[in-house]
């Protein structure tokens, strides 16, 4: 039976392991229980800084620490990181200080908390910032591995994690995970599905449904949205001739936007985007939200067929 886990747990585990490095500092904004930085606080209270409910202050405390040679990891809900966007831009991205921001509970998949909590624009806004690496992993193993790689990065990052448990794909495969490198989960030449986060799992389901229809697709876990693995996307464009992107995020500016921007300039093939269609969510269970927003495997199947039909 497939192991189920939440990506936020992978983040929390990584922080504890990173604590061996005396330069690692964790910053919290009253959500350590939720983002899972609380495990670090228990083990390293002297290198955990409570910032109260004050995200703007938290990010710049991180910048000050980073300028003094520390490696700060700050986390809160994805939506609350957004109020500190200018701090991220002017205090962290512009100065290229290695502050690592984690936004948990992102996307409509966060569910019953409703639209105020469902960040569907985080990947887009952080992707616009020079120097900032943007990630949205799909399981706890890859989240942990990507987090473990951050101290060596030497530049700021944003990572979206999630509260809800999803199938674990990479048990025993942590070595396959590299920042900036998409992972091919299955291969087929009719089309390529490029997904991130929870939509990776829907994409794998869609691939199975498509196979039963005689359509063979490649599925890629594009856990890093920036820098985008354009080498892989270029290869897929050549081999498959049609791409579908899939994300629990607005269709504007996220993974779909990033892939489209590259494809338009490199090899204009059909691209269809699965994402939240420029609207806000509402309170519902996680799976109900995916259904409501058109983010289920059946929607991906439809988009793959449409993309294939558009091939010249």
């Amino acid at each position: 039976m497939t192991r189920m886990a939440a990506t936020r747990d992978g983040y929390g585990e990584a922080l504890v392991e990173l604590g061996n490095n005396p330069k690692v500092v964790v910053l919290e904004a009253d959500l350590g229980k939720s983002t899972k930085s609380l495990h670090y606080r228990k083990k390293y209270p002297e290198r955990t800084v409570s910032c109260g409910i004050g995200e703007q202050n938290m990010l710049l405390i991180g910048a000050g620490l980073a300028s003094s040679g520390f490696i700060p990891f700050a986390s809160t809900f994805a939506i609350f990181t957004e109020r500190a966007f200018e701090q991220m831009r002017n205090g962290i991205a512009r100065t290229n200080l290695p502050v690592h921001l984690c936004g948990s509970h992102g996307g409509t998949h966060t569910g019953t908390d409703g639209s105020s909590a469902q960040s569907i624009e985080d990947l887009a806004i952080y992707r616009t910032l020079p120097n900032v690496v943007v990630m949205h992993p799909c399981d706890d193993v890859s989240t942990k591995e990507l987090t473990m790689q951050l101290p060596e990065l030497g530049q700021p990052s944003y990572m979206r994690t999630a509260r809800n448990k999803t199938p674990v794909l990479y048990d025993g495969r942590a070595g396959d995970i590299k920042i900036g490198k998409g992972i091919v989960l299955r291969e087929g030449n009719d089309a390529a599905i490029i997904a991130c986060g929870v939509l990776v799992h829907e994409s794998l389901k869609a691939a199975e449904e498509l196979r039963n229809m005689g359509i063979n697709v490649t599925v890629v876990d594009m856990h890093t949205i920036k820098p985008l693995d354009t080498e892989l996307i270029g290869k897929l464009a050549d081999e498959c001739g049609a791409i579908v992107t899939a994300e629990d995020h607005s269709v504007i500016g996220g993974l779909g936007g990033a892939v489209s921007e590259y494809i338009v300039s490199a090899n204009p093939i059909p691209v269809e985007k699965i994402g939240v269609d420029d609207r806000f969510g509402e309170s519902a269970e996680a799976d109900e939200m995916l259904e409501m927003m058109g983010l289920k495997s059946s929607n991906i199947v439809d988009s793959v067929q449409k993309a294939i039909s558009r091939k010249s």
Partner: protein
Amino acid sequence: MNGKSISELKEMARKCRVEICKMTHRIQAGHPGGSLSEIDILCALYGHRLRCKPDDPDWIDRDRFILSKGHASPGMYAVLAEMGFISHEDLKSYRVKGGICQGHVDMKWCPGVDFSAGSLGMGLSFGLGCAIAAKIEGSSRNAYVMVGDGEIQEGSVWEAAMAAAHHELGNLKLFIDCNGIQNDDFCDAQMRMFDIPSKWESFGWSVKEIDGHDMEQIIDAIDWMDTITEVPCVVIAHTVKGKGVSFMENNPAFHGAAPNDEQLSQALQELEVSL
């Protein structure tokens, strides 16, 4: 470089005022008013106290100085030139393409600048990070921050104020340059701040008020800051925007406007007389 006498500091401030006028006049842009109001404090801090090495600006154990009101960069650049972090020739690069003296102070461009400011309300939080870093390392270095009075209208300043007291950052030292004028008008017309000292006291800070142009008072205040080690402290400095140039003094028009040729001549004449 520390240990300058009162008269040396006054002379340093006079020279910096000349440079502030010349810099803004040369490019016909920038912020002379707030540079002239802050300059006596900056000279005193660098000339009397700040532990730093102009020939090794990135020395990790230096005291930090964070000019949060980053638009008042001409004042900062003038002091950095006086201290030898940069040359007086570098001052000609203020706001010029490729120049190290960017419009707002920028740590990526200019040696001796510890924070890239420009958006108000950010420097105090950054200073907290520097102060926390020093505490974790067990270093005795301090983080000094300067904000403007209009700047404390930014809500994030109060997030930082609360957090600094909570974390008992005795190594965090703040100056508020209270010149009473912000971009559009007098502060009292834009957003009255009422009793500023009481606000900081109620947030758990140790507070002292001074005349921000009286060099003796400034030196006493900096020495007083050394004695506050358990809580953050703030010196609320009452200043005059445009101080030292008669037609700029207390004149909102010179928040962000440069002197023209005639005005520069008059300014230089006045600053020469005040030698």
